[in-house]
């Protein structure tokens, strides 16, 4: 079969607060907010481009490690488009997401930066050119 990404998933001690941050920061829409049979609160969110981003707390009995907003192997970050990177870096910092790296003018490519979102999520902000 042809495989398609169904969603990306963020875990948060306070998933409502994290979801509301993404609503304000990147215009996510909260589609639902429920407590599942696994004991976790899960907010089903949709990005302006239509991708589903689920944000939930720990499931019953689930031991959680910390997030990691630094460079690391494996699933490291996701990227969000920006019309004006410099303005968005300032706006996101005011919302509590400090700049980690950049802005970087990629030769022949985009203007990018990395910021630290809630729960130690590494987010790339990308101004396409």
């Amino acid at each position, binding site marked *: 079969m042809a495989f398609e*990404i169904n969603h990306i998933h963020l875990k948060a001690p306070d998933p409502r607060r994290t979801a509301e941050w993404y609503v304000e920061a990147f215009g996510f829409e909260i589609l639902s907010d429920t407590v599942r049979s696994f004991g976790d609160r899960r907010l089903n969110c949709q990005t302006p481009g239509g991708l589903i981003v689920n944000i939930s707390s720990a499931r019953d009995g689930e031991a959680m490690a910390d997030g990691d907003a630094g460079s690391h192997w494996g699933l490291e970050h996701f990227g969000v488009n920006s019309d004006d990177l410099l303005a968005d870096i300032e706006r996101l910092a005011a919302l509590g997401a400090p700049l980690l790296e950049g802005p970087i003018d990629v030769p022949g490519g985009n203007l990018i930066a990395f910021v630290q979102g809630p729960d130690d999520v590494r987010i790339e902000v990308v101004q396409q050119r």
Partner: protein
Amino acid sequence: MGHFVNHVHLKSEDPGKTAEWFVAAFGLEIRGDTVREAGGDRFINCFDSKGFNINISGQRVKLGEKMESASAEPRFGLEHFGFDVDDMDSELERLTGLGAELKDGPIEAGGGLKIAFISVPGPIRIELIQRP
């Protein structure tokens, strides 16, 4: 344009091998494979069947990037991403045959929805979702 999510990014000590694994496992299409000038990292552009971009790259050695270890275990922050599957049991058998490890499930999530979590080379935590 708006703030749409434009990619998910995986970092690998051997991005070529990781990309080939995702091609075999999830049919990703490789559209670019370059060494980037600024970072000196190998950078592979992959896409799922609907055109969503998954980048797979190595360490940005020219920028002195220090890499922490990966985790396929439950954690706060960016934990996993999910793929739709048509048949959970056969996909679990196929993917474990390719080197994935079942971490959790299959779980009946209600309403006929079936999910499972696997660890794939990285390690990376991936959810499989079989819709009713």
